[in-house]
């Protein structure tokens, strides 16, 4: 009985528990509720994934109104994959958040942090389950509005301006998205994605539909921080509280990539729209630009969180590059990177979160030599760094390999060169982190600190293990991603 309503429970559970936390006004209770909810969501997501693998896509009519009139929640392999990724990150980060938040956010505001955390979580899961284009906008805004609040909780006053800029950019992005959806509705009279997909193919040459696609692509590109629309991201990640940086870095751009894949492939039919409009070439170009330019900028940062933020911008390039190749292999590289990058960036931001907890700083000269005092944290950061480079035995390698293979299949040598170059650039900035942690004389503030508490180390080690396990044997994630990509591409022509 319950399992039948799992798709909607994914959204309803965190949505209801958020105001409950608000009423209770206790940081400790709110944390306990958030732990239960996120782990329940993870269990639900895994059950949904198993169900989808067994029986194929699940369709859930919200309130009993059948699609296309009612809002349909539709869970296919891609949605289930993203659901598992997002809820796993949510469940792991909430454990980490307790100590980190207690240190960085005034105690009278801690419960508000968990309220926003749950709302953000709701938005992310909602984007993944919904099969309705307008409903996606609503969840996108739930996620965005709560993330603005989460960022503004940062200690540094620049967190406020970072949050404000993100609010302006994010709202423009979301508004562009609804303009696009509106134009599609004007021509097709429907908002259901499956229904749109069946009606759009004959209309791709119409100016209105072209404009709709342009608005949606630009809007979502703002949300996923595709170069040159990424200016909101570095400050937002840098000045947000550590736990927020972890959660945002692991999920916010990824969920926007998911929305873009959903729109381009499910709604607009992938190959057909790429043939009708040069959207794939444009995304390919900007993706490659992101991979190179953002990596170069990352090399010159002297703030670890900012360095990682620019690295995120460059990693978004990988995902956009994968989906712009227009083949099942490329798309699967993109999808698997949603999972892989979520895990590696969460690991890295969590490691720096541990350093912030002990040392209270993120700039290079203030935390130099922390590897000697915090060996476990530094080792975890090393694993995350190797993953970022794409070293074998880490999840980063799985992505690189799949993207290289996809580019090779198309015979696009320049694209392969860009992928390799970007990996080498990552090597430089990761080396700077390694050198910082191990080879520099410890800064005065570092000399007196010890390892981070167990409550923060445990989730850190879990993430490190995920990075290694799914790197050593990437067949499960890559297999799932390939199946999801094939399902999105539709039957082979």
């Amino acid at each position, binding site marked *: 009985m319950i399992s039948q309503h799992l798709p909607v429970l994914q959204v309803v559970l965190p949505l209801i528990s958020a105001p409950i936390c608000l009423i209770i006004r206790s940081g400790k209770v709110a944390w306990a509720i958030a732990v239960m909810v996120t782990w329940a969501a993870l269990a639900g997501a895994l059950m949904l994934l198993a169900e989808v693998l067994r029986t194929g896509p699940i369709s859930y009519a919200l309130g009993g109104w059948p699609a296309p009139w009612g809002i349909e929640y539709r869970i296919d392999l891609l949605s289930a994959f993203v659901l598992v990724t997002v809820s796993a990150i949510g469940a792991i980060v909430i454990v980490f958040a307790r100590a980190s938040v207690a240190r960085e956010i005034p105690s009278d505001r801690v419960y508000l942090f968990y309220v926003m955390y749950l709302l953000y979580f709701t938005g992310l899961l909602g984007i993944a389950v919904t099969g309705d284009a*307008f409903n996606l*906008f*609503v969840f996108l*805004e739930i996620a965005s*509005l709560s993330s*603005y*609040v989460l960022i*503004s909780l940062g*200690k*540094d*006053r*620049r967190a*406020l*301006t970072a*949050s*404000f800029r993100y*609010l*302006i950019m994010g*709202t*423009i992005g*979301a*508004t562009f998205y*609804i*303009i696009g959806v*509106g134009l599609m*509705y*004007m021509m097709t009279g429907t*908002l259901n994605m499956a229904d749109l997909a069946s009606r759009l193919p004959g209309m791709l040459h119409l100016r209105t539909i072209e404009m709709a696609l342009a608005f949606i692509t630009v809007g979502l590109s703002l949300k996923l921080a595709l170069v040159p629309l990424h200016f909101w991201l570095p400050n937002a990640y840098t000045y947000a509280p550590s736990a927020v940086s972890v959660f945002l870095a692991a999920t916010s751009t990824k969920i926007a990539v998911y929305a873009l894949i959903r729109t381009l492939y499910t709604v607009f039919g992938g190959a057909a729209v790429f043939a009708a409009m040069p959207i794939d070439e444009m995304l390919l170009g900007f993706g490659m630009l992101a991979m190179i330019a953002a990596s170069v900028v990352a090399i010159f940062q002297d703030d670890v969180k900012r360095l990682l933020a620019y690295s995120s911008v460059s990693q978004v390039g990988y995902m956009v590059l994968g989906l712009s190749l227009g083949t099942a292999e490329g798309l699967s590289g993109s999808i698997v990177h949603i999972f892989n990058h979520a895990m590696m960036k969460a690991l890295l931001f969590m490691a720096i979160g541990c350093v912030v907890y002990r040392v209270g700083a993120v700039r290079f000269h203030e935390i130099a030599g922390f590897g000697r005092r915090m060996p476990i944290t530094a080792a975890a950061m090393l694993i995350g760094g190797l993953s970022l480079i794409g070293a074998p035995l880490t999840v980063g390698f799985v992505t690189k390999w799949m993207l290289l293979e996809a580019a090779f299949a198309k015979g696009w040598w320049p694209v392969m060169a860009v992928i390799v170059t970007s990996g080498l650039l990552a090597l430089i900035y990761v080396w700077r982190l390694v050198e910082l942690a191990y080879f520099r004389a410890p800064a005065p503030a570092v000399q007196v600190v010890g390892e981070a508490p167990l409550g923060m180390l445990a989730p850190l080690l879990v993430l490190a293990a995920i990075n290694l396990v799914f790197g050593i044997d990437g067949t499960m994630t890559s297999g799932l991603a390939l199946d999801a990509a094939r399902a999105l591409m539709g039957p082979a022509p």
Partner: protein
Amino acid sequence: MTAPLFSLFNYWLVVVLMMIGFYVVIAQGNLVKKLFGLNIFQVSVFVLYISMGKVEGGTAPIITTGDRLYTNPLPSVLILTAIVVGVATLSLGLALVVRIRDAFGTIEEDEIEAQEGEPT
């Protein structure tokens, strides 16, 4: 198609409003003015949705006896949701501006940028 200019009057209005709003967001240095530009930008989309649902000569979609031409209610309902999102965005933005003024003592973007180099 007797008067193409006026038959598309609503859409002209949408484009003009949208550009005014967008321009204000980009050109204004004052954070509050920026937010209101953003709001005008969003409102133009509301007009776009409501215009597309309007059926000429149609009335409100209320069940009455007899066949009556009525306007498509769905876009209006969607916009009700979008208005809520817009209000939430505006109020959150204004709340942030209040906090920014407390922290920086100004809401002019260039003056804030000048201070951002220095840590708190």
